């Protein structure tokens, strides 16, 4: 089977792998590189659990071929905390009790991060829109929306 080289940065560190042509980024991250924070909830693009950030944009890693990611910078939820200190979004999800089973959580946090990176003080409607591609079956969404709004507030307080 034809192997193709893939080289990108993942959470700031250089990665180089050979993958089967046609391998999705989700499989490459999980099975080759060992970052299992993106989850495979549907492989259809309908649940958002596999969401990652590629060059600042939210993407579905299940519908992205790894070999189209050469040279890009990828962020996953596994890379958000630094030196054991949680990212404000992670802390807000914890404190708002916004996780239950936790399977959707990494994707939700990715979607929320992209929002806050571009819109530091989002309205509720903007949060709802940002999370709209991510399915949660446990929480009823409200705690997650509240966590994102809380993280935004704490960010703006820190900035002030």
């Amino acid at each position, binding site marked *: *089977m*034809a192997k*193709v080289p893939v080289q990108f940065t993942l959470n700031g560190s250089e990665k180089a792998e050979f993958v*089967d*042509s*046609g391998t*999705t980024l989700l499989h490459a991250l999980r099975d080759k590189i060992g970052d299992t924070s993106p989850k495979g909830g549907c*492989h*259809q*693009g309908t649940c*958002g659990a596999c*969401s990652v950030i590629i060059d600042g*944009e*939210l*993407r*579905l890693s*299940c*519908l*992205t*071929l790894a*070999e*189209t990611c050469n040279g890009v910078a990828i962020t996953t939820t596994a890379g958000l905390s630094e030196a054991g200190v949680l990212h404000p979004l992670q802390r807000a999800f914890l404190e708002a009790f916004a996780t239950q089973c936790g399977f959707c959580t990494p994707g939700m946090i990715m*979607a929320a991060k*992209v*929002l806050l990176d571009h819109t530091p003080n989002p309205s509720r409607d903007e949060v*709802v*829109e*940002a999370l*709209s*591609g*991510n399915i949660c079956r446990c929480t009823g969404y409200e705690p997650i929306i509240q966590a994102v709004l809380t993280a935004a507030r704490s960010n703006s307080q820190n900035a002030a």
Partner: protein
Amino acid sequence: MALALQTFATVKDANAALKAAGTRYLGGGTLVIRAANEGDVSVSGFVRSTEPSLSTIAVAGGKVRIGASVTMSTISRHADLGALAKAARAVGGPAVRNMATIGGNLFAPAPYGDFAVALLALDAIVGTDDGEAPIEIFLANRYGSAIVTSVSFALPKADSFRFLKVSRVKPKGVSVLSIASVLELAPDGTVSSARIALGCMADRPMRAKSAENALIGQSLTKDGIASALAAVNDGTSPATDPIASAWYRNEVLPVHLGRLLLG
């Protein structure tokens, strides 16, 4: 066999590679990678082209040319395409919009393909290496076409473009139906020209020509639009699917058209 991806610098070479059985053109991946993931064994390989013109937007003299690889989110953010932002944002969630392309949307079967409905109302021209075709003709023969390279249309006059997507789930759900219209008004406020496109009301986006005709010369009032609403179901043949039945789609189409026209 592995699903190999072949990347070509030119659309011409990509078109040639697509002649091989089982190959599919890879745009944003939201359709073809999904099909492969779901075990569609008729897909045996992907072809794409990195030709730069596929990714550009050109706006000049009231005309717009959008390269086929331009994504929904790029369109929704583009300063000159503000009128279309609502239609571009109607496609998927944020991640899907960062991937889904304008070219790909032309191939999305109902209940998907909301942006193609907008393009139909705009009377867009679809470009391929084989030449250009009006979107209505293109959609009728869309599967098996050469790679779409561009979509072009005249920018609608201010406020003349309207778009409505009806879905069960908010803010992001697939369509019960979608409606796009381009209406131009005479100085007396009556409709001088009308194009109305419907999504999910047939096996592909369709024009509501009877309703368009019924609007000409009418004002956008409850009485003025009545005959258009009465005619909008002419020629529809919606599908029954998990979202809604054909009966329901036909029942609420005039209601939603009325709200779009009066809104």
